[in-house]
């Protein structure tokens, strides 16, 4: 009886340990060897290391190797929404499907994930006109840092992750293009 319990415990710990090491093979460059920081700077050893800050956050394989939206929604991080008390913090839960994507799956743009981080005015109308179909978006311009490429490819997940945006298969889609009927209720309006 006792022996079997010991075996169960060993099994549980070994599985847990394996799973843990399998998931997190992420590595971040130390600041003194990142090609930017001067190893002779007095800030070395004072500034927080990426590995220390980012390892506890949900893992990704691209960009900062962090699923930032998941980190926010699941409470791993609690970044402030405003500094001035009278700032209106805006949030919008509205999905848009863009159908003119040639041979690629259609693009689903979720306002919820974006407005959890950004204000409406960051994109409207500076980068995108606030009207479905009014923006002539294409990948050439995105790759040059316009439209979505303002952030994606610079600070948000990179443009190598095609199918995170091109996520709606055309042949099985039966709904309407453009603004989608609201379905999600789990969005976090902070």
């Amino acid at each position, binding site marked *: 009886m006792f022996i079997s319990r010991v075996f169960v415990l060993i099994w549980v710990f070994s599985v847990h340990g394996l799973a843990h090491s399998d998931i997190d093979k992420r590595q971040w460059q130390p600041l003194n060897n990142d090609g930017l920081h001067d190893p002779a700077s007095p800030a070395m050893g004072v500034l927080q290391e*990426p590995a220390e800050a980012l390892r506890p956050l949900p893992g990704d394989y691209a960009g900062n190797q962090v699923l930032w939206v998941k980190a926010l929604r699941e409470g791993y991080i609690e970044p402030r929404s405003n500094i001035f008390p009278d700032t209106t913090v805006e949030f919008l839960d509205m999905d848009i499907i863009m159908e003119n994507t040639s041979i690629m799956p259609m693009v689903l743009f979720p306002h919820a994930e974006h407005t959890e981080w950004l204000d409406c005015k960051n994109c409207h109308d500076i980068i995108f006109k606030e009207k479905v179909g009014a923006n002539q978006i294409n990948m050439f311009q995105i790759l*040059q*840092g316009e439209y979505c490429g303002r952030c994606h490819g*610079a*600070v948000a997940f990179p*443009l*190598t992750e095609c199918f995170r945006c091109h996520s709606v298969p055309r042949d099985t889609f039966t709904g309407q293009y453009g603004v989608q009927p609201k379905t999600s209720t789990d969005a976090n309006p902070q």
Partner: protein
Amino acid sequence: MNKVSIFNVAAGGKARFFSLVLLLVVGLVPVDDARAEYGDVVLNRYAESEGMRPVIFPHWFHRIRFRCKVCHHELGFEMRAGSNDVTMARIIEGEFCGMCHNGEISWAVDNCDLCHSGKPGLKSGIHGGSQTKGPGRW
């Protein structure tokens, strides 16, 4: 008139087409600073010529603590590297970094070396191992 298009092979478009393809392929290769953390920004318009190390701004560090909208909406940072004229005078007056780095929300500007920590000769702009650093500007 012979209309020249990148797809018009007869009108010398072949070379243009291949140079465009080459540009795209080269653009997809991370050429510099592939080791830097994704989204790191170097500010060196004034720093080095004023005798200080270039500034390294780590997006990853700040977005753990603040949503994008705080700096890019409330504080008015344009979302394009190079389009903000960040000077120490304006920071000390409370603009840009000085909105928080004032000894109240975060440490004050007398900790020069914490921001001015870059290698000499760095070029301003987004660095940070962007895997899609194309022909564009960031």
